[in-house]
């Protein structure tokens, strides 16, 4: 996976003129980043086939708990990672958005499978053509459904994001603007 682009746009630079983060702040940031990365509690928003592959990922052969993510939080308040798995129909779209809004910061979104990422083969009147039309997506996992290996890869990409993310990012104007562009308060 060497050709993965590092997502520069997700990082927030300190404004010009403000002194850089001191040693304490940077090491705090890295500790918090590491902690968050290793404790991503997923909210499995499993609607269809990908949900079964997610079960396989939870299963003994792949064991998502190795990444510290085995506690599925069905309550959005406690979840860190919204894993949208399966087709999101237009009837379902407001619910996905509501779940995302209920999640506490910091929150990440992983779109698993062709349907959640782009609609997949269901280019039909009732299917949302990708969940990034309603909520910001951090990592896309292609496949229909993706193999558990790909899901774990995707989880590790989210871990990369969490590890390198500044703890100030969620207060940054860029992030607020991103949310505002999705009409999320």
């Amino acid at each position, binding site marked *: 996976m060497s050709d993965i682009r590092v997502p520069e746009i997700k990082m927030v630079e300190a404004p010009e003129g403000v002194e850089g983060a001191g040693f304490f702040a940077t090491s705090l940031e890295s500790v918090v980043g590491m902690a968050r990365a290793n404790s991503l509690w997923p909210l499995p928003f499993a609607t269809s*086939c990908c949900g079964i592959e997610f079960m*396989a990922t939870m299963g003994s052969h792949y064991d998502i708990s190795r990444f510290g993510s085995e506690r599925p939080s069905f309550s959005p308040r406690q979840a860190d990672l919204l894993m949208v798995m399966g087709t999101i129909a237009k009837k379902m779209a407001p619910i996905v958005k509501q779940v995302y809004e209920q999640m506490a910061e910091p929150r990440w979104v992983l779109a698993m499978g062709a349907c959640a990422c782009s609609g997949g*083969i269901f280019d039909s009147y009732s299917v949302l053509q990708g969940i990034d039309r309603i909520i910001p997506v951090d990592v896309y996992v292609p496949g229909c459904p993706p193999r558990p290996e790909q899901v774990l890869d995707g989880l590790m990409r989210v871990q990369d994001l969490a590890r390198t993310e500044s703890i100030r990012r969620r207060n940054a104007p860029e992030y607020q603007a991103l949310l505002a562009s999705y009409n999320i308060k």
Partner: protein
Amino acid sequence: MAVNDTLEGTHKIIQEAKEQQQNSGLVPTLNDFSQELTTLNLGPTHPATHGIFQNILQMDGERIISGVPTIGYIHRAFEKIAERRPFYQITPLTDRMNYCSSPINNMGWHMTVEKLLGVTVPKRAQYMRVIAMELARITDHLICNSILGVDTGAFTGFLYVFQEREKVYEIYEEICGARLTTNMGRVGGMERDFSDVAIQKLRDWLKTFPAVMKEFESMFNRNRIFMDRVVNVGPITAERALNYGFTGPNLRAAGVDYDVRVMNPYSSYEDFDFEIPVGTKGDTYDRFMVRNEEIWQSLRIINQALENLPEGPFHADAPHYYLPPKQAVYKNMEALIYHFKIIMGEIEAPVGEVYHSVEGGNGELGFYLISDGGRTPYRLHFRRPCFIYYQAYPEMVVGSSLSDAIVTLSSMNVIAGELDA
């Protein structure tokens, strides 16, 4: 999009129907829930609804007074898409209908098209299909029963049997190259013969699986905590079940031994010796036991099919419908023309209509195909067992507690993809 203003909302009969409904009190609306009762919105993101059913329950404490299910949360317009796709491209669609047992859907669809086209599949391919379908049935039942365990709070059994599912995935992978959405088989047979590795893996699995299944059964079957949770929970009588159009394990749990494999045998099911387990009360425990027993019967079928797997071709000799081998396409002009025609969907489909049903993981899975001779079906209707029997759910849970409702839901094994099409 033009608004169809002649109908929606303005038609007199609809208005009358709505008023009638409100007056009759048959279907409770949210407004007439009284003060002392709670309205609980179970789903769509509730963990036990496995995604996407919504049940608005009216509850007196923990007791359910009435329930209104809402479905359609993953409506994907299968039937409309199928009208725009050539026959072979509908196979990936059927994969995603009952995704716990995609091969059954695949095979059912292929058999429907073969029936339309008049293609006879050789015996070997039929046996191969039987093996794939019974594997799918086992995995489907495994997931249903182990999820029932999860919903009663015992998570571990689920992971034990999921390891077996994982092994079946490996077999699928050797057969067709994918794990879950298999896209297995072709119109006219299978796309390739079973490899030696596949056969070997299948044999190994057949040796190891019964021990795991016994272990799973001994964890649940006679455990009083589990029995208390499921015996007499969510029962339905045979008459009501038939009236609701139940088929499959849910109907058999109520005591009716209706099985498409026996009543209208397809794909050489008449060659195999197996029994149809039936329950008595139609409660959750019966459904659980019927599924467990069906796993054993499916194992019997697989063993017989594997023992008696005939030699011969794995696809029909139908060059109009079955893709020629790659090497032939490369060298042979006639093969290339067939190849182009099949891929473009320009096969000579007769005009007609055909209904074919197979015993899916959840019951009679029917394909009603109307062909007008074009490259796509004129109309394709799926008889989706989940869609048909899920409407009995409110009737089955009224009067029971919230815990029972969840157990009942998971024992019915409603697969969302099939429910919403």
